[in-house]
């Protein structure tokens, strides 16, 4: 599904990613753990194609297509989705309007008819219900005045509505209480299937307990230092990151 080779990325001439190699096959869930500033979010942004992040070297392939130079929008339309850590507010634009515009942009790209309003409402209301969100959520301006938990749930709502091929969850667990964390984890588990792949970026092993990734990677100073299974996440939870810094 996703194949990243020797990816080197800088922001404002500062090198952040120093050669990432990562392969996530179809149907697998991988997790990347690491301290603050180790480059985890940079990786998410680089995969999404954010122009603030300059790719100095290396490549990103999705389903054997080189997407390293592809526009943000085309990457999104090819099936890449990011659940952002701090999704930006767009005052005056309702969640429903935004979500429908987004779904229909994907439909148009896939040569499908626009999703009509009734179908959209039925679909989104079902998901809202699963995320313990009220229907009125759709009327609110996107991310405008949302609580931390609502922002994360809004991202999961979009994930489930768009059903992408490859999802990146950038610290989707941060700032959530235990109930919200479970709700979000359930959402992610609902999304995961043999036909898609997921990359979970997190500091803590907490979310991973509910999602159970196939592979856990540890990022240190812009590189993947160690990879393993869930036991690696548990070890980090117990010992912290310092033993990996040597």
């Amino acid at each position: 599904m996703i194949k990243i080779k020797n990816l080197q990325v800088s922001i404002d001439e500062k090198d952040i990613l120093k050669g990432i190699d990562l392969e996530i096959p179809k149907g697998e869930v991988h997790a990347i753990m690491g301290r603050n500033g180790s480059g985890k979010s940079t990786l998410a942004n680089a995969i999404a194609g954010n122009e603030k992040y300059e790719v100095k070297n290396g490549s990103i392939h999705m389903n054997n297509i080189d997407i390293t130079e592809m526009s943000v929008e085309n990457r999104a339309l090819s099936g890449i989705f990011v659940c952002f850590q701090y999704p930006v507010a767009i005052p005056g634009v309702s969640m429903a309007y935004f979500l429908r515009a987004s779904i229909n942009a994907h439909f148009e790209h896939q040569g499908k008819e626009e999703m009509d309003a009734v179908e959209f409402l039925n679909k989104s209301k079902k998901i809202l219900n699963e995320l313990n969100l009220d229907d009125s959520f759709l009327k609110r301006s996107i991310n405008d005045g949302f609580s931390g938990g609502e922002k994360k749930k809004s991202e999961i709502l979009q994930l489930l509505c768009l059903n992408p091929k490859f999802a990146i969850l950038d610290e989707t667990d941060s700032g959530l209480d235990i109930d919200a964390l479970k709700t979000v984890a359930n959402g992610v588990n609902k999304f995961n299937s043999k036909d898609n792949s997921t990359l979970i970026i997190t500091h803590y092993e907490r979310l991973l307990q509910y999602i159970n990734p196939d592979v856990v990677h540890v990022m240190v100073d812009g590189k993947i230092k160690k990879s393993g299974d869930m036991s690696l996440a548990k070890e980090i939870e117990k010992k912290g990151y310092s033993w990996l810094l040597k």
Partner: protein
Amino acid sequence: MIDKNQKIIDKNLDQEYKYGFTTNIEQIKFEPGLDENVIRKLSNIKNEPKWLLNWRLKAYKNWKKMKEPTWANIHYGPIDYQALSYYAAPKIKSRKNLDEVDPEILDTYNKLGISLNEQKRLEGVGVAVDAIFDSVSITTTFKDELAKQGVLFCSFSEAVIEYPDLVKKYLGSVIPYTDNYFAALNSAVFSDGSFVYIPKNVKCPMELSTYFRMNASNTGQFERTLIIADEGSEVSYLEGCTAPMRDENQLHAACVELIAHEDATIKYSTIQNWYAGDKNGKGGIYNFVTKRGICAGDRSKISWTQVETGSAITWKYPSVILKGNDSIGEFYSVAVTKNKQQADTGTKMIHIGKNTKSTIISKGISAGEGQNTYRGGVKILKNAENARNFSQCDSILIGDKCGAHTFPYIDVKNQTAKMEHEASTSSIGEDQLFYCNQRGIKLDNAVSMIVNGFCKEVFEELPMEFAVEAKQLIEVTLENSVG
């Protein structure tokens, strides 16, 4: 990113103005120049009563003593008032019958999407139109139907003849000819405009609107609109404006006076789309407009909503004098400047009565090299107990060559006043665009989505049909303005 922005902005600037065509018709037009004789001739052509001619002449004398204001944040070369023609009108036999109107003119309005044909009225959604072409009104639709309810809706010239008492009583009562340079000029040479009178306790059964079309070259358009809402009445009025693309600048200096008596409500909406000039700032309308309403009676309400997308220069401050106790004044504005457009616009709320309340919501959008200034004054006089004002001025910048400026003036003479002021300026966020793009939404769609969201509070104030038009206008105006 910036280079790419610029490229796409440049591409956008080549876009055609949709309403820039010219209508070729026979016309009567004064030779350029302005003196007392021109005013006499103008008054004569309109069969005006003596008092009105005298009023014009007094205004003219006053204007000659005045100086063009320089305090606004706009820059333009000197205007040669002697090089303009002060009257241009298509040759029409009669205003009464639409069949006798030049088909070229009817075609013009059709092209602009304005139906002057009453039969074309959609079920339930009637909009009565006064169509003003250069210096004269072509026709006013639904007049008879409105008259059944006692609503008077006609051209200003017609009102002068038909309802001289009302005109005499109210003309200049809100904007005296001494008010400012452009109001004085307008008072001297105004040609036509709309007149509305809503009788006591009548809720006007349809939207009233005036469509202004400037066609003739080297002409100034000076229209005068007067709306009187008698006790307990209600009216919603809309004006739209377009003009052909011409290389020279055209002057438009209008006056609009609103009078709301006890318990009356006037809602006045404007969609201004005059020709804005080309990408180098050549041509375009100079729009110097004085609009003011008075809430004369208790519990009266005046609400201004404006969407300003056109004109090379916009100088305009629709204001409300809150004289009646418990009266309400509102100002909702979206002003867009792109290319080299300049807008200095805002409002004045003057609180005189007790428990008066005003709301100001201003949204400025600047793209290209556009300069957008909000200038607003809130005055609470000594006897205005418990006056309240809420002001919110937000600006959004698209690209890095444009500018947004805010000049709020607050003058409070009564301690019980409650004032709130909020202001923000932001660039159209790259983060917002990235977020939309990451969801598969194309750049142009993302921009119009973000801008429409930004303007939402104002668009919500527009009558339904026009809110849609305003949204589309903004979308077309800002197409390709970011990269």
